[in-house]
């Protein structure tokens, strides 16, 4: 059927302009099933904008985005979860007014309908119970099952970052977009997340935007380098490490200002 050769995500000649800034300039890339792809580049390179375009938060001036062969542009953001796309936001993006458990459960694609909820029908109780146990399973796998009843604001940053990933996993996505998942994390947390992503790849494609290069090199099959809205290089982690153009555009700068983009 060609199912396997069809890219999970295909971006073609994407162009996005914000006033005078050309945030993305003729960007083309593809992510194939089972791949872990890292997208790197200096601050303001357009990495988050690329994710925003995929998720329908910004409308490109030109270009195409296909997901499993179907055009994605014009799809409302809230429909992506149903299609199998999950994304975490740069920074946090948890809901402080919901407990950890509720934060994760709300990530599910399945949820009781309005009427069953309003009338508290047994069916809604049953679905809620299933969701709660699934959320618990995921939290357990991420090693934070002890925090289910806490509110995110009371927890260490590292735990909160895991909750965000747990929420994305709750949707059982086929494409997972992570925007700076390890910024602000300890070395040990970073290693654990790298191990997790390696496990996930059997079940989903992962695209990671990240500044932490050791992490990027450890997890990715392929690295795409953006600079000033353009793809300047693409290849295996080793190829990227050895690419002189990347070194001047990005790596050199990164050495001078390590972790320049950690979140406020």
């Amino acid at each position: 059927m060609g199912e396997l050769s069809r890219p999970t995500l295909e971006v073609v000649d994407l162009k996005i302009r914000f006033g005078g800034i050309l945030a993305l300039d003729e960007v083309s890339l593809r992510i194939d099933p089972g791949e872990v792809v890292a997208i790197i580049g200096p601050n303001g390179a357009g990495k988050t904008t690329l994710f925003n375009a995929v998720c329908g938060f910004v409308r490109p001036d030109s270009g195409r985005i296909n997901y499993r062969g179907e055009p994605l542009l014009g799809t409302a953001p809230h429909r992506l979860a149903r299609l199998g796309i999950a994304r975490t936001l740069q920074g946090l993006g948890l809901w402080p007014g919901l407990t950890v458990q509720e934060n994760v459960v709300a990530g599910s694609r399945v949820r009781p309908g309005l009427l069953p909820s309003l009338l508290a029908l047994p069916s809604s109780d049953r679905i809620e119970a299933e969701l709660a146990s699934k959320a618990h399973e995921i939290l357990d796998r991420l090693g934070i099952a002890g925090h289910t009843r806490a509110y995110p604001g009371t927890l260490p940053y590292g735990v909160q970052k895991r909750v965000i990933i747990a929420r994305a996993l709750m949707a059982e996505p086929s494409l997972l977009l992570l925007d700076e998942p390890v910024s602000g994390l300890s070395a040990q947390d970073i290693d654990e997340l790298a191990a997790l992503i390696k496990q996930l790849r059997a079940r989903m494609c992962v695209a990671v935007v990240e500044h932490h290069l050791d992490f990027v090199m450890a997890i990715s099959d392929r690295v795409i380098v953006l600079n000033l809205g353009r793809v300047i290089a693409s290849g295996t982690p080793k190829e990227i490490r050895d690419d002189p153009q990347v070194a001047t555009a990005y790596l050199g700068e990164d050495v001078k200002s390590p972790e320049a983009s950690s979140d406020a």
Partner: protein
Amino acid sequence: MVAVQSRLDRLVRPTFGRHLLFALGAAVVLLLLSSQIGAYDDYNLTAVAIFAVAAAGLNLLTGLNGQLSLGHGALMAIGAYTASLLLKDHHQFPVIVVLLAAVLSTGVIGIGFGYAAARLRGPYLAGATLTLAVAIPQVATRYKSIFGGESGLTVAPSSPPDWLGADFPPERWLAWIAFAAAIVTMVLLANLLRGAPGRAFKAVRDNEAAAALAGINVARTQVLAFVVSAACAGLAGALLAYWTGVTAPAGFTLALSLQLITAIVIGGLGSLAGAVWGSLVLVFVPLLTSGMASRLSLPSSVADNLPLAIYGCILVIAMLVAPHGIQGALRRILAYGRARWGNTPGGGQKGVVDWDDPAPDT
């Protein structure tokens, strides 16, 4: 003993059973209470129930979904006028029909305003709903032949059914109606809030982008919150029509909307119990302060304004002492008690006060 325990468990475990049990408990308490007190207190408790319905709806919208509305007084007016139009010229309709008609009409109008509100944020939303608050009473004044102008519409009271006896006080009958309406409202809202809709309301309030990425339709969720909230306001309006016996524009000024906001802030934003506390404050504190003022023999220029001044002071002090409202303070005390005297079920989080949560069972 074990059998009883497990049967009780089976009854209470499902949300429906738990909320129904709570409703029956509240009904019994209110029934007993209302037959112990006089007509005047029944009359005041009816007002509490009416305000509680409207405030609970507003709390869902503002406290849980983050949409501020200055127009809930006007939505109550829509419910009140729906009821009054049905009941004018001594028409008799069953109470339940009148109340449902008010819920329906306000809910439908709520859909329209909900769509507009979903596009607006913060001060723009406040401005738009303020327009509603100002415009609705104007409509009633302008179309005098339908709405009776400034003097309003008289409402035929609902008389107690015969089986309650000939001398059953009508105040108590109306109190029962209001209690029943309030309990049903609270149970339905509690059902909503503890499930997926409640999570969606809060998720949209806390972070819209993250909510959308989790598959929550942000606009639809905001419209839903507005509609449910409007329906509550409509129900409260219809009850208010019965309570006052006359529906006139002067009863639905901006002050009414502000009172409802006061109720949810004082009671506790985002909790159903908070709406009840706030309504108790709204009804009984002014009565208390005017009672105090009338007992002192003061010149009328002072005596007339003193109650309001004291009321204002009480509200200010309440906000200083309990910034998260009465419900927030109660939870803090409860959490403190648990921490102090052990008995922490399931390793409760120390220092975590979930004043944000609906707590129908408290």
